[in-house]
Each structure stands twice: as structure tokens, then as C-alpha cells.
């Protein structure tokens, strides 16, 4: 693609006054972009460097090799956080995917009040995770929330105390996270459903396909690129989940709902173990890369195939 600028300026060498005259535009373009790019690169390298130093309260120079990494990986805190991430990540992504898909298919049936319903399913996305976590911590608190309500209504043996149950507490985060962001999956799926070629649907209907067959065989297969995108975006959220857990369980009871982002924060700002905190942050980055790199490769292959077709 040749562009307007370079062809125009290449005609003659830029003179000094020209450069000075164009200084404001250079500043407006380059300073923010360079600052942004520079801080992303240098801050990441900086954190990686700290993760190899014996830093505790303040960053110090020195080299301890992988000692911070082995210490973090061996800690119970991280092991629980990692197990929780596997459970939370897969349960949340799968369930919000299914919820979003179901809602999108239902809304796609030309129902009345679609706009209102769509707004209802999407409004949690406008609310902060802190608010979501706080509200769900009330609803799920057995002493004041749903369990108490059911008890007051007369069913006194009813139990719904996951929030204070070590084994089940992680599921409260799954519930709140699905409530907050399944609307996102719905919005993307609905856009996908609406872009399915009407002729294909008509042809399938003429062939006598019923609604279930139509969805299973014809419409849903076209949605899988969107499905991959939804999974990646939701996994990205799951891996860096912090606010929601902080407001809902704060990692408790005990450390039962610990997640990597909480471990990082705890090490860096509460235990003043900067080296280990940085190592945990780098581990988070590696987990993220394990998701994003295959996705990037897949996107690259898709584009190339699209280019050849």
C-alpha cells in the first residue's frame, strides 16, 4: 500500500523549517505511542529482572537464578491458586459459553422484547467486579443471603453455604463470574447467528431440516471461530481475575479461593517479597501465553487460508 504522505515528502528533502513546523504533529503521534510501547517493553523486562534478584522489601540487584520461581512453585499458596485457576477457568469458561450460546439462540427466535432482554443480559458488564463481588458476597452469605431467606420461609434444613465451605467456595466465584460476563458470550454469539447466510438456512429448511437439526448441523458449525474468540477472552479474564475474588471471598475461607493474581499482590505488597512476587507475575504471564500463543497461531493460519481462498 503506497501512501499519501511519503510520496508527497519524498519529492524534495525536508528542510529544517519544515521539520520545525511539523514538530507538533510528530510530538502528538510519537510521544504517546513511544511512551506506551516503551513502558510495555521496559516494565515487562524490569519485572522479569526483579524475578531473578533477591529483592524483598525494595528491589536490589543480584542474581539468584530460579530460586524465586522454585520458592513460589513450592508454596502451598501458589499450588492452591493454580489448582483453583484450572477449576475456575474451565468451569467458568464452559458454563458462561453454554449460557451465552443458549441465550443467543433463544433471542434469535424473533421474540418480542428482544432489545430489553439483551440489555438485561448485558448490564452486569457495565458494573465493576468490586460491585458484583460485594453484592454476591451478600447473596451467598448463609447468615444473611439466600440460605437465610429460605430458612425464614420455613425450610430450615436448606443449606447453601458454599461461601464458607472450603471445598465449594471456588464455585461462588464461578457463579458471580458467569452472572457478570455470560452476556458477553451472548452478544458475540448473537452477532454470529445473525450473520449466518439466510440462503443456507432456507436451503436446509427446504431439505426438511427441523429446528434442532438446523442448529446442530447448519448454524452452530459456523459459530466455532466466535467460540474460540469467546474462550480466549474469557480465559484471559479468568487468569488475571483479581477484583471479583477480592470483593467476594478475599481468597478465603483460609486460602481456599486463592488465585494467581491474589498471590502476586500478596507477595508484592503484603509480604514485601518483591522477587517472589515478580516471579509469580511472570508465571501468570506464562500461563497467559500458553493460551494466547496457540490462539495467535490459529488466527495467523486462518488469515492465510482466507487469503488463499
Amino acid at each position, binding site marked *: 500500500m503506497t501512501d499519501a504522505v511519503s510520496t508527497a515528502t519524498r519529492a524534495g528533502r525536508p528542510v529544517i523549517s519544515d521539520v520545525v513546523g511539523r514538530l507538533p504533529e510528530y510530538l502528538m503521534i510519537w510521544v504517546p505511542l513511544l511512551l506506551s510501547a516503551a513502558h510495555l517493553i521496559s516494565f515487562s523486562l524490569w519485572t522479569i529482572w526483579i524475578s531473578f534478584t533477591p529483592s524483598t522489601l525494595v528491589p536490589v540487584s543480584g542474581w539468584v537464578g530460579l530460586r524465586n520461581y522454585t520458592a513460589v512453585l513450592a508454596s502451598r499458596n501458589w499450588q492452591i491458586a493454580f489448582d483453583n485457576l484450572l477449576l475456575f477457568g474451565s468451569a467458568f469458561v464452559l458454563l458462561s459459553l453454554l449460557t451465552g450460546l443458549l441465550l443467543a439462540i433463544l433471542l434469535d427466535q424473533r421474540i418480542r422484547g428482544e432489545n430489553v432482554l439483551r440489555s438485561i443480559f448485558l448490564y452486569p458488564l457495565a458494573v465493576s467486579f468490586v460491585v458484583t463481588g460485594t453484592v454476591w458476597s*451478600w447473596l451467598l452469605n448463609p447468615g444473611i443471603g439466600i440460605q437465610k431467606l429460605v430458612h425464614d420461609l420455613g425450610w430450615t434444613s436448606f443449606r447453601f453455604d458454599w461461601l464458607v465451605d472450603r471445598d465449594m467456595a471456588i464455585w461462588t466465584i464461578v457463579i458471580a463470574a458467569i452472572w457478570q460476563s455470560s452476556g458477553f458470550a451472548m452478544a458475540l454469539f448473537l452477532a454470529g447467528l445473525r450473520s449466518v447466510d439466510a440462503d443456507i438456512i432456507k436451503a436446509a429448511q427446504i431439505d426438511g431440516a427441523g429446528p434442532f437439526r438446523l442448529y446442530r448441523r447448519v448454524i452452530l458449525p459456523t459459530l466455532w471461530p466466535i467460540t474460540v474468540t469467546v474462550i480466549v477472552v474469557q480465559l484471559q479474564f479468568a487468569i488475571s481475575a483479581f477484583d471479583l475474588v477480592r470483593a467476594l471471598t478475599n481468597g478465603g475461607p483460609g486460602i481456599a479461593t486463592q488465585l494467581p493474581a491474589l498471590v502476586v499482590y500478596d507477595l508484592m505488597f503484603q509480604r514485601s517479597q518483591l522477587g517472589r512476587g515478580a516471579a509469580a507475575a511472570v508465571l501468570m504471564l506464562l500461563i497467559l501465553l500458553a493460551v494466547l500463543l496457540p490462539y495467535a497461531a490459529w488466527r495467523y493460519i486462518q488469515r492465510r487460508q482466507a487469503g488463499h481462498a
Partner: protein
Amino acid sequence: MRDRSFTPGRILIYLVVTLFAAAYLAPLAVVVLNSLRTNEEIAQGSMIGWPQHLAWGNYAKAWSGFCVAETCAGIRPYMLNSALVTIPATIISTLLGAVAGYAVSLWRFRGDNWIYGIVTLGLFLPQQMRLLPWTIVLRDIGLINTLTGLVLIHTIQGLSFTALFCRNYYVAIPHELIRAARIDGAGFFRIFWRIILPLSAPILIVTVIWQFTHIWNEFLYGVTFTTGQQQPVTAALIALSAAIADIPQHGVQSAAVIIAALPTLLIYLLGGRYFVRGLTAGAVK
């Protein structure tokens, strides 16, 4: 199959979507109702219930009454903090992102794809990778625990999103438009003001809504780089529930939650279409 008549199948569809809608609305309804119940009333029953008489006083107390630590100024100072961070950071990052997106998509310069590629990495890199460096840098330049520091962070980080949104929008503008304007002697900014900006309303609305919602709702930076009276409202809400954990005041807390969530909820109600567009644009990257 796609008719509007009420067959049993369609009644089932309406039933299921209504149930889902009720489940999505329930938490909001519970908090709104609780914000109008007295603390005693909630303590006697549960969080879920109808107000016996409307306790509007909760809002007054939440806004300017309750105490966190030694200060008893309610949520108002923290709302002000959030506004003083969110509004400037939203405006500056949107403007810079528009100029950057315009430069990268329509002017092209050497290395632009590289710089732009690195900037968009900011969408993926976890915030945790930048917490320590930001702490050190903010301390060195004297902006730790200031609202200015938060504005700076959100502006620089927000540029990743704003530049991406605007670039993706501007690449669709035909180059001939720029070329013709250049032949007429118009420069970079003149073309931006006269040609690009008038075409930009939709993408600027999307970007502003996205940035405002994200910065207002942000918590990690707020809690890491500010303390006490300097914190944004998200961090203050957490501090509030920790401070009164012994004697909960759920009525007042519910009112505080409503107040804190109101700005982004209002923006969502007013600009829902643009909100969704930003959501999908941010996802597809």
C-alpha cells in the same frame, strides 16, 4: 418455524428467557431494595426482602455520613476521586488514541506497524507485570498516592485500546480523501480537524464509553498506588466493607454500592448500542 404465533414451543422459549432475565436482574433488585431498608430490618430477616418503610436516609448516610477509619465523609470524596481520575484520563487517552490511530492508519510512517503492534500488546499483558515498575516510577516522579499518577497510568495504558479502536475504524476511510486534501495543501492536523474528526463521532463515542467504564471500574491500580483519602471509589468500597465488618450496615452499604455503580450503569443505559460495539470490537482485536 420462525413465526410469531404462540405455539407451546414458543411459550417455553418465553418462559426460559423470562427466568434468565429474572436471575440477571435479581442481584440489582436485591441491592436497590436493601438500600431502602434500615439496618435493623435487614438484621432481623435476610438481605432479600421488601422494605417496610422507605429508609431514604441510607443514601444520605452513604453519600456523606459513614466513617472509614477516622474520616466520616461518606462515599462522596471517593466518588470525586474516581471522577477526577476517570474524566481526564478518558478524554486524554481518547484524543491521543484518535491521533495515533489516524497517523498509523492513514499517514503511515517508518516502523509504524512495529510500534502499533507493541502498543496493542498492552491489551494482553497482565497488569501484574507492570505493578512494581509503576510503583517505583511513580515514587521517583513524586506521583505515588496522587490522582495525577492514576490519570497518567490510565492514559498510557488506555492508549492501547483507544489507538486500536480508532485505527480499525480509520483504515476504512479511503486514502483518496487524504490525498486530495494534501494536494490542496492541508497538513496533518488540518486534515484531522476538517476531515477525520467530523467522520469520527461513532468511534469516539464507543471509545469514550469503553474507557470511562473501564477506568471507573478499575480496582487493582487504585488499591495499589493510592491509600486512604486518595483512593477511587472501587477501592473505597472494599475498605468500607472491611472497616465495618464487625457491625455491618447493609442498608447503608447497599446505598453506597448503588451510588458507586450508578455512573457506568447510566452510561450503559444511555449508550448501550455503543457499549456493545466496543465490547465486540475489543474482543475481536
